[in-house]
């Protein structure tokens, strides 16, 4: 519900007004009622007294008329008779459950009085003075009875209304008490309501100003939240939008600066690589052809060994350039391995002893290109090259039920434990500069990628007791790799 501050103020005022008005109305109504009741009762007494007065008047008027039978006296008598009749009807209305019997008596007594008066007048007109005086005496008695009866009636009324009066007093007392409690309740409720109301205005303002402080301090990432449903909330929303906008702008600027920095860096890198590529821009085909030509030349000159060596170098070079990103068969790998060994044999002569034990049935399986050659090269570099007496490198391909086990063994000084760990973890160790360019760790990483993290390479080594590298290549699922790799 949306509710503006103005509405809230109006609501507060309306609530107060309604409470006050209802209390005022209730009090007025109650007072009016009480007063009406008082009036009513007083009216009854007056009316009852009037009955007594009317009967006395009638007797007086009758007496006057009997003494001086003048026209005006007759009129006065008639007036008195009318009065008592009127009074009788009024009395009749005062009947209630308590006074019914007495009131009926009084009313009938009044009737009797009027009748007796009439009879007196009749007897007088018949000129019967004795009977006249008797009936007049009766009328006088009746008038007395009426007075007495009226007194009894008023007495009874007093008795009847006594608890009622007490009730009124009791109620006034209760009203006083109610007034106190009502005042306390309303004061309390109004205090709570006012607190809540003022709080509902000032709280959002407070949080808004807190947010403004944060922004002025330069923190644009704090969300501005104001729980309110009035104008403040609108203000807060606008403020929030402003904050978001500013924040976005700042982020944009920062991103731009970042981009520019990166751009600068990559520009430098680009220049460097351009330089490198310029340096290494010798056509490989030119190199192969040249090597072929040299090989033929050496062959023609009768140096067959040199010629073979050159062919091997050229083959190796071609293989290197071509197969890096492809999967190849174990057969290809083994072939390249032999060529490499031949080259190295030419270099190290007797010092390098290469023993191969290859199970021909396993050569069909696929594995990433240039896997074995760097491992053999590694062995040559560490186990043969530094040692004058040379070294032995064993190469074994063995068929196992689900795997093909490839073992490369040397009798060199071994690899320290820490280094093995870093190799298996795939950290580039930066091995010596005379490799064909593809390091041990590179092989490990490629194997991991190819076999999707399967644990295929194990290195066993002990200080001075040589190194054994075992590759456990799974037979199954190779075809898919070939295809996916080819496609990639």
């Amino acid at each position, binding site marked *: 519900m949306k509710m503006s501050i103005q509405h809230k103020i109006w609501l507060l005022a309306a609530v107060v007004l309604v409470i006050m008005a209802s209390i005022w109305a209730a009090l007025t109504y109650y007072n009016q009622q009480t007063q009406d009741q008082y009036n009513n009762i007083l009216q009854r007494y007056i009316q009852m007294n009037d009955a007594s007065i009317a009967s006395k008047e009638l007797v007086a008027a009758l007496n006057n008329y009997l003494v001086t039978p003048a026209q005006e006296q007759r009129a006065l008598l008639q007036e008195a008779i009318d009065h008592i009749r009127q009074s009788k009807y009024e009395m009749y209305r005062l009947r209630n459950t308590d006074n*019914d019997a007495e009131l009926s008596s009084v009313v009938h007594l009044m009737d009797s009085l009027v009748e007796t008066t009439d009879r007196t007048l009749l007897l007088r007109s018949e000129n019967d003075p004795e009977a006249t005086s008797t009936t007049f005496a009766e009328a006088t008695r009746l008038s007395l009875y009426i007075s007495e009866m009226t007194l009894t009636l008023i007495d009874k009324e007093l008795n009847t209304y006594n608890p009622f009066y007490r009730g009124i007093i009791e109620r006034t007392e209760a009203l006083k008490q109610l007034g106190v409690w009502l005042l306390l309740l309303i004061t309390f409720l109004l205090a709570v309501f006012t607190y809540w109301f003022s709080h509902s205005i000032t709280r959002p303002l407070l949080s808004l100003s807190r947010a403004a402080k944060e922004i002025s301090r330069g923190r644009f990432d704090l969300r501005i939240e104001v729980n309110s449903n009035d104008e403040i909330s609108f203000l807060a929303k606008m403020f929030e939008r402003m904050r978001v906008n500013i924040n976005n702008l700042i982020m944009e600027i920062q991103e731009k600066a970042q981009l520019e920095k990166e751009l600068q860096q990559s520009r430098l890198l680009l220049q460097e690589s351009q330089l490198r590529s310029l340096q290494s821009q010798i056509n490989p085909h030119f190199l192969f052809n040249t090597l072929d030509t040299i090989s033929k030349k050496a062959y023609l000159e009768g140096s067959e060994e040199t010629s073979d060596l050159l062919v091997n170098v050229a083959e190796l070079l071609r293989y290197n350039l071509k197969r890096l990103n492809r999967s190849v068969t174990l057969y290809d790998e083994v072939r390249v391995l032999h060529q490499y060994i031949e080259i190295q044999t030419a270099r190290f002569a007797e010092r390098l002893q290469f023993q191969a034990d290859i199970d021909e049935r396993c050569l069909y399986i696929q594995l990433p290109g240039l896997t074995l050659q760097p491992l053999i090269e590694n062995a040559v570099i560490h186990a043969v090259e530094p040692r004058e007496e040379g070294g032995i490198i064993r190469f074994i391909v063995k068929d196992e039920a689900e795997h093909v086990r490839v073992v490369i063994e040397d009798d060199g000084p071994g690899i320290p434990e820490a280094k093995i760990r870093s190799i298996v973890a795939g950290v580039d160790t930066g091995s010596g500069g005379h490799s064909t360019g593809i390091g041990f760790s590179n092989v490990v990483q490629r194997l991991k990628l190819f076999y999707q993290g399967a644990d295929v390479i194990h290195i066993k080594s002990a200080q001075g007791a040589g190194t054994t590298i075992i590759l456990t290549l799974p037979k199954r699922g190779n075809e898919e790799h070939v295809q996916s790799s080819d496609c990639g």
Partner: protein
Amino acid sequence: MHIDLKMNILGGQHQLRKTAIITIIAMTLMLCYFTSASIVKLYRAGSPMPAALQEQEVPYRLVLITQEMDTPFWDLVGDSALAEAEKQGISLQIWGSYGSNEDDFLKKMEIAIASKVDGIIVQGLDTEEFNELTKIQAGRHGIPVITVASDVPMQDSLRRTYVGSDHKEAGRLVARELLSDMGQAGTVILIGGSRQRYDQDLRLAGIHDILQHYPDIHTVFAEAPDERERVVSAARDVMNRYPEADALIAVNSNITETLVREIGKRYQQSPFRIYSFDDSPETMELLKAGKLEGMILQSPEEMGRISVDLMVKWLKSEAGPLDMSGYYTNIRMVKAEELP
């Protein structure tokens, strides 16, 4: 450390807030309770005004008039009459004079007639004024009069009927009792009062009815006026004259107590058998104390009930003509030895 402190403060604030809310709710509930309680109190305070009577709810207005207001006997009559009136759904008022004030009693009669009640049930008073009122005044207004407890001669008063004890029969009862107690010879003093002469006459007639067959029993009648001193002197006088008397019958109901007290002063042990027609509690006490031989017990409740019932029947013309001679209520003799 700084954050911890802040958290603590926040936690404290939260706690404080919770306490404040609970306090406010408790206060509101308490104030609401007290306010509503005082509203209820205000609402309940005070008694309602008597309901205004819109129409004639009560078909008949009856008046019961006695000469002896607030006596146990008449209280019983009045209560049973009121109960019967309530049962019948009619209005009954009990008027009367205190201490047998005749003028006041007659005035009440006159007022009742002048205020045109539908029926008057009255303790009979055998005086000329009373008869004049019932015969002429009530007759003129067509107001039926039933006498109760005490009768008046029908032809003098034109009362519709009488409800109460058969006094003649009561006299016979006492006489028979006297015979069986005293035997067939002796002197009996009958002391009467000056009031309710008609009742008294009937009682005397009843006594004579029985005793006239026994020539050996002498009866002496002494009249004691109402005033206490004169009752005493009359009693002395008669005792002086007939010291050999065997029994004493208080024919008028109001003199028994005075009489017994006077005899008590004179004799240690009463030489007379005393009988009474009065059944007031005082007389009952005397009977219990053995000062009385026996007394006649009347049925005031029956009187009240039957008189109202008959009046209503008469007004509704249900019962047809009422039995003019009267409707007698139960009487019985109570003996001193019967009492526990």
